[in-house]
């Protein structure tokens, strides 16, 4: 043991020196995202890689454009893809029972709606029965019947909204010009368009099934579902054309940014108000303390020498 033991300060200094001596010299450059990209491209070009090729390599490396494209596709067509996949599964199952165009009709008994399927039910693997309650889980999953079409439209809407949130969040994270106000406006307009398209698709599917019911006729399972998918697509495209220059999003963005500015101004006024209140409070407290102190001193003096008064 070394005596006297080294002081804590000396020990701390030595450990700092040891840490510093590990590095000979360190230069730190701070670059923002565009600067970093430019540096990367310049380095690649100095290595003899053409600029176009370097940009392609950068895209491949980050994988951002691919992610954005995939999410964008899923956002726009997530609902349609989901319905198409379910339709394909359903079609495969119905084909087992003899016909791909297996028909169904809706009937009401004791106030309950039933979906009756035609064809040989024993050959089917998914829709094994001939009669299902309209609220049956399988019917709901495949969008057969009015209630199920509603549930399918709702879940399709949710799928598209989830992808829209992801896509816009990625842009918010990586695109410096894409602010929180853009995130809100893009998401709001996307949700609005998806909701309108989903509702239109649902109404069309229900309308077709109801039309057949009026004539007491059976209908192929795939007919209302396919019509619903295409109506949602046409309405979605119609909305995109109507809002081609993103007028809705721009208007919303302007409004939010106006409010943001006003809140900023309000913030300054609020801070001024808080500062004034704190200052005045401080003055008031000091004044009160002084008064209290003086009254205590006066009382003490009275006790010590009451004869003086």
């Amino acid at each position, binding site marked *: 043991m070394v005596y006297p033991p080294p002081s804590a300060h000396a020990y701390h200094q030595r450990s700092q020196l040891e840490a510093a001596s590990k590095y000979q010299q360190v230069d730190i450059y701070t670059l923002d995202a565009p600067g970093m990209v430019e540096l990367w491209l310049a380095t690649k070009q100095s290595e003899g890689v053409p600029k176009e090729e370097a*940009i392609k390599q950068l895209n491949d490396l980050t994988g951002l454009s691919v992610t954005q494209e995939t999410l964008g596709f899923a956002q*726009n067509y997530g609902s349609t893809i989901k319905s198409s996949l379910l339709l394909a599964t359903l079609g495969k199952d119905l084909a087992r029972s003899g016909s791909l*165009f297996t*028909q169904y009709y809706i009937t009401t008994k004791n106030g309950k709606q039933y979906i009756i399927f035609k064809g040989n039910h024993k050959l089917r693997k998914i829709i094994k029965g001939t009669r299902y309650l309209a609220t049956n889980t399988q019917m709901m999953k495949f969008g057969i019947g009015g209630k199920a079409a509603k549930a399918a439209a709702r879940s399709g809407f949710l799928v598209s909204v989830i992808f829209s949130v992801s896509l816009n969040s990625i842009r918010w994270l990586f695109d410096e010009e894409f602010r929180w106000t853009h995130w809100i406006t893009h998401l709001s307009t996307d949700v609005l368009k998806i909701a309108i398209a989903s509702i239109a698709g649902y109404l*069309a599917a229900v309308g077709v099934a109801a039309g057949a019911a009026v004539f*007491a006729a059976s*209908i*192929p399972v*795939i007919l209302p579902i396919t019509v619903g998918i295409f109506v949602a697509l046409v309405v979605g495209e119609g909305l995109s054309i109507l809002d*081609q220059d993103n007028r809705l999003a721009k208007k919303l963005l302007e409004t939010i940014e106006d409010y943001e500015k006003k809140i900023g101004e309000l913030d300054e006024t609020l801070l001024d108000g808080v500062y004034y209140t704190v200052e005045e409070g401080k003055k008031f407290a000091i004044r009160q303390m002084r008064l209290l102190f003086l009254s205590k001193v006066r009382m003490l003096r009275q006790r010590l020498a009451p004869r003086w008064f």
Partner: protein
Amino acid sequence: MVLTLKKIGALFLLFSIGIFLIAPPAYWLVLELGEQHTMLSHGYSVVVMRTTHGYWPGSIVAGVGLLVFSFGLPFAQSHPTAYKKALTASGYMMLAATALLIIGTIGTKAYWQNQFKEAGYVQCNETKLVDINRINQSIWAQKMAYCNDPRVARSLDNLSREELERVHRILENEP
């Protein structure tokens, strides 16, 4: 075959949906195809590739299928054989429409990408140029430098043909 008011209403609804699936998509299909060809033939510096028309053949077939079904519906009770034939035809059309939707989506994009590449265009990252991110639309330029040109970004907003012509004039007149 007696057509009550309810039945007439139902038929009207079905025909309306059928027409809705045919008329706007047919118009958009012709319009977009014409625009794509015009853009390529004019050789604009910056062009927009739109591939929405890939969905519309499917939509038109689905619309026709629905119309066939609607025509057969009044005969469901009086002529079940005729109705069954209409149902089968309509079912095949719906099937074809779904297949066309998938083929059209992939095929159209592949076809136009090839056409644009052959014409010497390179694809830009459109989110850098415009604030509209749509999966069925992409921006292509004759030179990659145009994709990062702030003048191009400033001039583009809704990607109309007028805007693309303006951008072309700006870039053509540069020294």
